[in-house]
């Protein structure tokens, strides 16, 4: 294979939309204008029992923000960073008591990593307290000690950077042990003794693992996978359990939280932070006032994302992209980091062919457009009449109708993107521009 073609093969892997930024890749993290992680980091010292939810689109970088937050506060706090998607099969079915138990289990893992001895009676207390809230019909299938093994952490391998791949495989296997979780507990009442026991057991673990004056900070990633509005309301609004932990806690949450009704309900208990997307083009909604400088800042931040990834291979942006090509890609990404990575990823096979054919060695504008068109067609396959109607509504009104499954689906799947500039507005993803009349 020609060296040029080989380069595209490497870049195909480098710009892999599957990969989220782990803590060992923090050199790739680019702080965006008004970054949520920095904002929460500043607030935590003043709210030692505060609870935050970071809500945003799929692929908008919530996990990366949490990782960045954990890294930034590593020296000052004992970070218990629970990775739910790696820990359980059905995040969407988790109950507050299960999440609480998993936080306790994550605390035990953290203690092990820090070589802090936790008395068996504390572990037993967690197991027995959890047994007390299990659904009686499922209790026979639950082995609490196995569950304790199946919990996955993130921001855990700073001490051993480079182990990310190995730990990823191991964690995936470990999750099988917690397969039963996701609706395994019974409904509980606030103030119920069993719940108080569980809360107490978790608090005790968190207290034990932070003996040196570094208070615990709980980070929970993955609750953004929950799609059902009822479940979201129940988890974050109706149940106060997640807000009762003494330790400051930060959760990632689904984008549908941004819908005003839920926002208000959940906002009574949590500080809700919107991780809106980077503004990369002037908004179509006429009522949005935006300093053109803001657009430039946004584009610059995304350009840095690309620059940093290329720099790892001693490549400059100009080695890989014609300047107008990258601009086209930035605009089409809608400011969604994963989509930016995805578009570049899609350019690679095309560029590979081009290089193999002996023509241009860079991603030029026609090639970028071809990749963008590929992705546009992929989204088009999934459009239905209802989805198109909702997209038109969003384009016209600058916000989702909030009416029904199509509205939620579009938000959750990143077809409708939120932005903020003092106030929040929504736009259809630029990739969908022109796929139907009125879009």
């Amino acid at each position: 294979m020609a060296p040029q073609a080989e380069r595209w093969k490497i870049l195909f892997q480098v710009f892999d939309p599957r990969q989220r930024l782990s803590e060992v890749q923090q050199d790739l993290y680019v702080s965006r204008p008004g970054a949520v992680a920095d904002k929460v980091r500043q607030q935590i010292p003043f709210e030692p029992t505060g609870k935050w939810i970071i809500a945003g689109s799929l692929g908008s970088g919530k996990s990366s923000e949490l990782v960045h937050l954990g890294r930034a506060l590593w020296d000052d706090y004992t970070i218990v960073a629970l990775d739910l998607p790696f820990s359980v099969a059905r995040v969407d079915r988790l109950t507050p008591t299960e999440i609480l138990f998993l936080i306790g289990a994550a605390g035990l893992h953290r203690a092990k990593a820090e070589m802090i001895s936790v008395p068996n009676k504390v572990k037993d207390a967690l197991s027995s307290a959890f047994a007390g809230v299990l659904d009686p019909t499922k209790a026979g299938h639950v082995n609490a000690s196995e569950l304790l093994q199946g919990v996955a952490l993130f921001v855990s391998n700073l001490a051993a950077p480079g182990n990310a791949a190995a730990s990823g495989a191991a964690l995936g296997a470990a999750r099988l042990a917690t397969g039963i979780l996701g609706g395994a507990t019974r409904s509980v009442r606030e103030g119920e003794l069993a719940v108080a026991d569980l809360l107490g057991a978790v608090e005790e673990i968190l207290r034990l693992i932070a003996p040196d004056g570094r208070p615990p900070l709980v980070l929970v990633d993955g609750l953004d996978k929950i799609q059902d509005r009822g479940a979201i309301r129940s988890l974050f609004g109706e149940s106060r359990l997640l807000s009762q932990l003494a330790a400051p806690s930060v959760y990632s949450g689904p984008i549908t939280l941004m819908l005003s009704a839920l926002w208000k309900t959940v906002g009574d208990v949590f500080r809700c932070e919107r991780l809106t997307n980077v503004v990369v083009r002037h908004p179509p909604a006429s009522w949005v006032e935006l300093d053109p400088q803001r657009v430039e800042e946004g584009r610059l931040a995304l350009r840095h994302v690309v620059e940093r990834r290329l720099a790892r291979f001693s490549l400059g942006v100009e080695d890989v992209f014609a300047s107008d090509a990258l601009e086209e890609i930035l605009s089409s990404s809608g400011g969604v980091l994963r989509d930016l990575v995805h578009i570049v990823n899609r350019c690679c096979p095309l560029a590979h062919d081009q290089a193999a054919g002996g023509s241009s060695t860079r991603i030029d504008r026609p090639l970028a457009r071809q990749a963008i068109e590929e992705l546009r067609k992929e989204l088009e396959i999934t459009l239905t009449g209802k989805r198109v109607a909702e997209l038109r509504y969003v384009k016209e009104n600058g916000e989702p109708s909030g009416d029904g499954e199509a509205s939620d689906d579009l938000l959750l799947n990143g077809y409708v993107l939120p932005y903020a500039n003092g106030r929040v507005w929504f736009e259809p993803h630029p990739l969908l521009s022109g796929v139907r009349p009125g879009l």
Partner: protein
Amino acid sequence: MASEASVFARIRRTVELSAGGLGLILVTGEDDLGYESLEEIWRHLPVGRPVLRVRLEPDFDLVDAIAKSARPDPIVLVLGLERAAPSDRQKLEDAVNLQRDRFSALCAAIVLWVPKSEILQFQRHCADLFHWRSLFVEINAEDLPLTAGPVSRRRFLAAQVGRWAQEMDLRLIASTPIRQLSRWSAHTHRGYAFAPAGAGKTAAFRLLRHEMALESLSDLFQVVVPYFLPASRLREVAGSQPFRLPGTGFPVDRWAESGNLCILIDDLRGSQEEQDALALLCRRFPKMRLLANGREKALALPDGWERMRLEPVAKGTASSEVSVEDAEKVLLEIVDRERALLASSLPMPATEQILEALGEVAVASLRKGSIPADRLGQFGFLDGTPEFLRRTALLVSYEESQGSGASKHSEQRVRFAATPPFLLCAAKALAARGPRDAARVLSASLLHPRYWAVASALVDLWRRRSSWAAEELVRALIEDERSPLVERTARLLGLGRSSRLNLGNDVLVLARHRLESLPGGTRDAERVRLVAELATYSRELDSRHDGHS
């Protein structure tokens, strides 16, 4: 979505680039194209990398299966979603989603078939996987070459059936030498039929195409696909690489190589160009059937060709068969004369054409608002025969005409609407010959692609005999925004959204109830007979179902 070359080339390119890592390629298309699509993808894959074919099933661990295969960096073709019931599909998707993080440790290119009807659910249940895709392509039927597979064959054949109606005057039917041609073609591999101008050669060849297509549809094991080709395009076709036929949009090499294809060449003139093209075709595809017509007896032909003089239908004979000019009357007279043959479904040349033409006459009458009583009597003989399904087309067409403002309250409407023709005919075919044959009966008869979808869905319902199949059908029929016709059909069949269908045969029960609830005095004898027939068949299905379970 994209041209054939670009779809498969893109898949191949993505597979190549993902070597040494993970590539996830999602492929979608009409639900029944899964197997053929993945086989075609397989044909385009780079050589040298091992290929695994796996089928998703409950409790199936894809990652584990790949690991156990011990093949380095394999390409994994995954089917299974298309065969699962909706409730099982969610389980399968959940299972795949559960494994998603373990995928990260894999070195494999996974090509996963997601039926088009499942895309939105897949997006919901496997949101991360959807976002992790390296490629997502839609494959359409026209992207696929014709294979010997039953699905593509049926699609193609169904498109051939009935085309004569758009291409020729109905009055020609009785005066074409189709009977002679039909007998001769049955045992001829390479042949040339000659006759003077005006003898009806072209019309006969068009009808032959129709008959051959119907015959193929009627026989699960017969794989002759007829194609009507004007000789003027012979050269273009013979030299095409890959082998293509005008208007098909896909290569047909494998059909030609395997002998499944029969090209009906119209109007050979004997030019050197034609001779060369014929010789090339014979050399290139020794097994392919070639039948041609022309005027010249002494036309130069490649070795091994049979010649046959096509005798024009004598004027006297034609006039005795066709005594009036009016096509409608011609047809009805034929029906009257041949009723016994038609009713007993004995082979008779042009039976299908006659019945279809009759159907058209009836539909035309219905569109005007009514069918004369004497004509109704003429349709009556169809009851209880396999040809009864002709009324299906009438019914659907009639219902379609309702949308255009035709009369809604005629006796005929009651009569036609009271009959569950799809169901009854499919049931009969099923009882006599099995579900595939039921599908064939329906698909051969309904002709229109939209009806084909209805038919195949219905047969699926029967085949699976479970509530999800019925629900699936209802969903497909009712929620398909593009086709109000099928929605009305579904309503006619009693497949309301709220229907609680426990078994496929509940549809029969619904049909029976509908018949029972008809106003008294409306063709009581027939109603009683049909009710009894449906009840019997329901019981049979029940007992068979019990036996199976």
